[in-house]
Each structure stands twice: as C-alpha cells, then as structure tokens.
C-alpha cells in the first residue's frame, strides 16, 4: 500500500489519534528535561554569564521556525501535484505554529540582545531575515483567512508559498550582502560535524531541539485533525441543506 493512503482524511485521523498523546508526552518530557538541565545543571558561560541559557529556547525555536516553512512548502507542492486535501490542511495547520516559533526566536533573541549587544534590536542579517520570514508567515496566514472557499484558498496559498520560498532565499542573500552583522554563525553544522560549542551546553541543547521538534509535530497533527473536522462539519452542513 502506498503512503498516499494516509492522505485520506479518515485514515489520517484514525492513524494520528493514538499517536498524538505519545508524541506530545515525549515532547514535553524532552522539554522538561532539556530546559531543566540547561537552566540549572550547566555552568554559566565565562563571557556571557547566565544569559547564555536563553539558547535553550532560542536556537530550537529558530530551527523549527525554518523547518515549519519547509514543511509547508512540501505540503503545498503535494497539494498542487496530487491534490490530497490533508496536505493542504497540514500546511494550513503548520503556519500558526511556525509563526509562533518565529516569534519565540525573535523575542528570546531580543531579550538576549539587550545584555549581549546592548540593544534590543539590530539590523543584523540573521535577525533581519527572521523578520522577513515573520512577514511571509503573516501574509500566508492572512491569505488563508481572507478566502472563503477552502480549495481556492489552498491553491492560492500554495502558489504563494512556493513563490515566497524563492524570494525568501533571495532575501537571505540580499540581506547578507547589505550588512555583515553581529549575529554569530552557526555552531552546530549538521553536515560537517564540527562544533564550536562545548558538550556541557550541547547535550541539553540537543534534547531541547528534539523536544521542540516533537512538539511541533504533535501540534501540527492536532491542528490538522481540527481542520479536517471543520471541513467535515462544512460538508455535513452542505448535505443537510441540499
């Protein structure tokens, strides 16, 4: 059987319903452990003092903010090519979660920036491109909300998501070109395996990242289920009426 069978709304709900409590449970466990470990069991950084602990919220949130957009892009492509309703709804469900992640990254970053750079906000490329990402999320969600017919909305937001992705990458480049910035580069490059961060900070950070990832996954599942139920109610209403 093919993976596309899960694109059937009924099957999707049946499969994910038992999954959600587990994923959510593990996510919360990871977050509790990771945050507790990070906040209370790691030493203060020799330069940054205790403010370094913001990293346990900031970095996972930033990561998920980007991944959520990737997921939306994928789901949009699936919707445009194969027209599975669940994928369109999943994209719709992911957007608010993604924008909240973006906001968490922005806000924790701003709080961090105050002691580190002496300012709440600086037009640093990394920060700036996050702000742009926030705007893309905002536009995407606004477009979903503005259109009455769900299929039309799904089509148009998918087109927007694809075009938006291209321009988001372009903006990232442009912003780099425009300003070299204060924000540090990545210190957890997945590909090379090198890292510039010590193990004491690294292990709880990874636990937090896993926690955020699973939390995102669980939230998207729940929200997709809700969207499916909304559509089902709509369908029932139509049937009653005609």
């Amino acid at each position: 059987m093919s993976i596309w069978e899960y694109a059937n709304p009924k099957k999707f709900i049946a499969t994910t319903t038992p999954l959600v409590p587990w994923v959510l449970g593990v996510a919360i466990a990871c977050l509790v452990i990771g945050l507790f470990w990070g906040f209370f069991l790691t030493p203060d950084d020799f330069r940054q003092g205790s403010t370094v602990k913001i990293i346990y919220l900031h970095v996972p949130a930033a990561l998920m903010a980007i991944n959520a957009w990737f997921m939306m892009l994928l789901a949009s492509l699936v919707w445009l090519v194969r027209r599975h309703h669940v994928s369109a709804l999943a994209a719709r469900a992911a957007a608010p979660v993604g924008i909240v992640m973006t906001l968490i990254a922005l806000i924790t970053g701003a709080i961090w920036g105050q002691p580190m750079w002496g300012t709440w906000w600086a037009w640093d490329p990394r920060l700036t491109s996050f702000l742009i990402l926030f705007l893309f999320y905002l536009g995407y969600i606004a477009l979903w909300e503005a259109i009455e017919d769900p299929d039309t909305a799904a089509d148009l937001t998918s087109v927007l998501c694809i075009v938006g992705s291209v321009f988001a990458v372009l903006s990232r480049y442009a912003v780099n070109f425009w300003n070299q910035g204060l924000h540090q580069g990545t210190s957890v490059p997945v590909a090379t395996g090198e890292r510039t961060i010590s193990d004491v900070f690294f292990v709880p950070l990874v636990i937090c990242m896993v926690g955020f990832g699973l939390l995102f996954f669980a939230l998207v599942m729940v929200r997709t289920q809700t969207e499916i139920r909304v559509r089902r109610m709509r369908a029932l209403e139509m049937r009653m009426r005609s």
Partner: protein
Amino acid sequence: MKLTVTDLSVARGGAPVLSGVSFVVNAGSALVLRGPNGIGKTTLLRTLAGLQPAVSGTVDVPEDAVAYASHADGIKAQLTVTENLAFWADVHGTTMPDSVFGAFDLDDLRTRLAGTLSAGQKRRLGLARLGVIGRKVLFLDEPTVSLDGFSVKMFANWLRDVHLAQDGIAVIATHVDLGIDAPELELTPFKSTAHAGGGLDEAFL
C-alpha cells in the same frame, strides 16, 4: 461540430448543485435551459464554458470555439462602443463586421463612451460582442435581461439568422421567452438530492 454533455455533475461553493445532466446539441441548433432561481443554470453554464471544473462527467466540445457571456459583459466604461468591440475583435484575431452595429441597433451610439449607456443599451453592446468574436459555441446566461421587447426580438433574429444559420451552437439560460424555436431543457429533475454526493468536500464525510 457538436456539443456533447454526458452525465455531468456540477457543484458550487462545495455543494453539489446538479447531477446527471446529459444532452447533445448539434451544429446549427440551440438549447434553452429552464429552471427556477437557484437551480444551477449559471453553475452549469460556467462549467460548460470551462471556467470551473466539473465534479464528474464530461463536456465534449472544441475548446477554442467556446464563448461565455453573463450579466457582467466586460464592458469598459471609459472606452467608446466601437473601441470596446474593436478590442474584443483584436483579442480574438477577427475583423469587426460593420453589420454588427446594425444588428444590435448600436449605429447611433458608436462614439458614445460605454459608461454613459442605459442599462439596455449596455446589454446590447455586451451581446454585440458575440457577433464580433466569431466563436461558434455560445453559452449565454440570461442574455436579454433589461432589454425591451423590440431588442429581444432583434437579438433572437441575430441568433437565428446569423449565428445558428452559420452552424453555430448556443446554450441559453433564460426566464423569459426568446421567441426562437429551440428545444428546452428543464433542470429541476437534475437537482442534486441530499445524498447524491459529489460535492467537493465529499472526501471528508
């Protein structure tokens, strides 16, 4: 040329509207769609013209022969009557036959800005567009709204003597009597019942 509709189901706003509509219209003949308000005439015509997808069933017609005309007939208020028609002729790559002004009683209005026409005059201009674009298969949604009796007759004459006589096809939704000799299709029997299914949201049930 021939318009063949087989077992067509159409939906609007996610709700099934009509189902199981089948008919054939041969070259040189017209079909009049009848039915009470809200039965689905507009939805059916838009589907036939390819402006919205069918839920199921097929519409068989050469796609580049189709034209659609509804209440909103794409008239630009800031262009004159002639300019409006010339634009559509240009878009369709045809030349504008001068006879069209006579056929739709627009002779005196040629240089008037379309925005200053009365309701009926504007509608005549919208219909004249059909005489300009040279399409063979016309889907007309209430073409004679706000026309006076004389103009209705004029339009019927054009349809019979020009369009159908040249092997055209027309499917017309209307509530009034056009005075042309065409078979009528009452749509009430095709109304989708509650459990007919086929709406776009069916997948969720």
